[in-house]
């Protein structure tokens, strides 16, 4: 039995607006196991980033709580690394400087040599050895994102929070980085919450795919368990017999059901236990019209 690591318990987020409060989401429940890779899919503005910010401790929920390892999140923590949507590298530092900044924040009293060694190792892990002395402005989009990943990895977090980390990249670079991200996360046993727009990315990377309805008052409509085998390979997933079932399900959701399920949830819908969808051909799936 997998060990529960993150538990999102009845979380709501409301922002004060011009015409009263807007509720991005409320009464949101989700649990994520240790070592699990969870992708979140939903239309823009449904609150994926808002939830990520709360998980990161950069924002706090209006109601409810998020527990990590049984303890309520009280703010940002070095155990939860964030890979930001816009890479967020510090432009006045080199690649090495950026990663070393994170390392020296984690190990405050570590000697310089150790900080540098750890930073170099993380940079090598993402395949950027040799580019340590470059500034972010001299790097391509894909390389910047790699530095972002190296910076997150270098602090040896238990949880990685990624906000559309590859969305700004070309298809080829994205494929390579997805492959590396998956390898690294599996090797280091990361627990991952990743936001994506890309259905194939979710199918390749995720163990479970969380589908969020449109906002405001977004809900977790369903949680899709990825039926693809663990040894799946990037660029080959479309040969898997279950691939099209998953893909069609996700696309149907994004095209039409993301609105329907917000406004008229199924009669037996339970916020605390959103329907779990298995598309492995053994469990029949009831599709909403």
């Amino acid at each position, binding site marked *: 039995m997998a060990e529960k690591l993150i538990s999102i318990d009845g979380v709501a987020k409301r922002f004060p607006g011009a015409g009263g409060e807007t509720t991005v989401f409320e009464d949101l429940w989700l649990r994520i196991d240790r070592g699990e890779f969870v992708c979140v899919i939903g239309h823009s503005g449904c609150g994926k980033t808002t939830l990520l910010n709360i998980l*990161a*401790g*950069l924002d706090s929920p209006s109601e409810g709580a998020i527990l990590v390892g049984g303890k309520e999140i009280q*703010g*940002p*923590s*070095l155990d*939860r*690394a*964030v890979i*930001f949507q*816009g890479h*967020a590298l*510090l*432009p*006045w530092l080199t690649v090495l400087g950026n990663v070393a*900044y*994170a390392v020296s*924040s*984690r190990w405050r009293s570590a000697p310089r040599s150790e900080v540098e060694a750890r930073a170099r190792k993380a940079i090598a892990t993402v395949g950027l050895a040799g580019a340590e002395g470059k*500034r*972010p*402005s001299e790097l391509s989009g894909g390389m910047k994102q790699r530095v972002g990943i190296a910076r997150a990895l270098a*602090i040896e977090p238990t949880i990685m929070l990624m906000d559309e980390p590859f969305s700004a990249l070309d298809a080829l670079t994205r494929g390579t980085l997805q492959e590396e991200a998956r390898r690294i996360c599996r090797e280091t046993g990361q627990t991952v919450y990743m936001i994506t727009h890309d259905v194939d990315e979710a199918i390749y990377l995720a163990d479970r795919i969380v589908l969020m309805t449109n906002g405001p008052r977004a809900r977790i409509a369903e949680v899709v368990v990825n039926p693809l085998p663990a040894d799946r390979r990037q660029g080959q997933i479309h040969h898997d017999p279950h691939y099209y079932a998953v893909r069609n399900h996700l696309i149907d959701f994004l095209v039409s059901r993301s609105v329907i399920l917000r406004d008229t949830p199924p009669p037996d819908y339970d916020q605390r236990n959103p329907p779990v969808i298995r598309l492995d051909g053994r469990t029949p799936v009831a599709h909403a019209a």
Partner: protein
Amino acid sequence: MTLSLRMRGAIVSLLLLGAFLGAWHLAVGGVSATQVMDPEYAKLMGITATQGKSAMPGPLDVGRTILTHLADPFYVKGANDKGIGIQLIYSIGRVMVGYILAVLVAIPVGFVIGMSPVMNRALDPFIQILKPVSPLAWMPLALYTIKDSGISSIFVIFICSLWPMMINTAFGVAGVRKEWLNVALTLEVGTLRRAFTIILPAAAPTILTGMRISIGIAWLVIVAAEMLVGGTGIGYFVWNEWNNLSITNVITSILVIGVVGMLLDQILAWCQHLVTFPE
């Protein structure tokens, strides 16, 4: 015909300078009709009236004066007769002291204003009222309280350097990108370390812009302040030479003030270049 832009610019600059010097030379060297007059009266009237030569020195006179000043810039021949180099050192010294004191006050205060919305609102009315006051308006108050003309000039430099640096620092600090601050937050970086490792480098180009504006204003103000309080300094030198009716020295001083001002600005431009990062 493929001279670089830089070369073409330099050639036009030289041509303009030549045209200006030529026109100046012709304008002051022109001989107008002289009146026949009583020799005693002519002595009183001086060379202008008797030889038709203008009292305005020509470029060659100024050139000669500059050479004599360059040959011996640091002479001291009494309280009211010191070399232009010594006067410059007095002025630059006052500007430096006042300016550095202003840096020490403006940057920390600017940080506080930029980081705290409450302090921003609390200090805003004071800054808005004090900023437009001509720095020279502080002079009587400074003289009355400090009772020393040199220190009063330093105080005036301090006051006039303060505002651009403070406002730019606050602006730069408040405008640091949220994502960089979030990086520091997720790494659990403390407030002080965050101020030095994220906010300072991120705001540095804006802060340096303020420092550059300030040094320019300080150099403008020191001349006026020294004219007012007298004693020493390049401002006093200009005024003294005017009283001596030595227009050649006045023109020389104008040139020297311009060159020093340019150098001060270039030094800060270079510092600004050092802290600017490409994105």
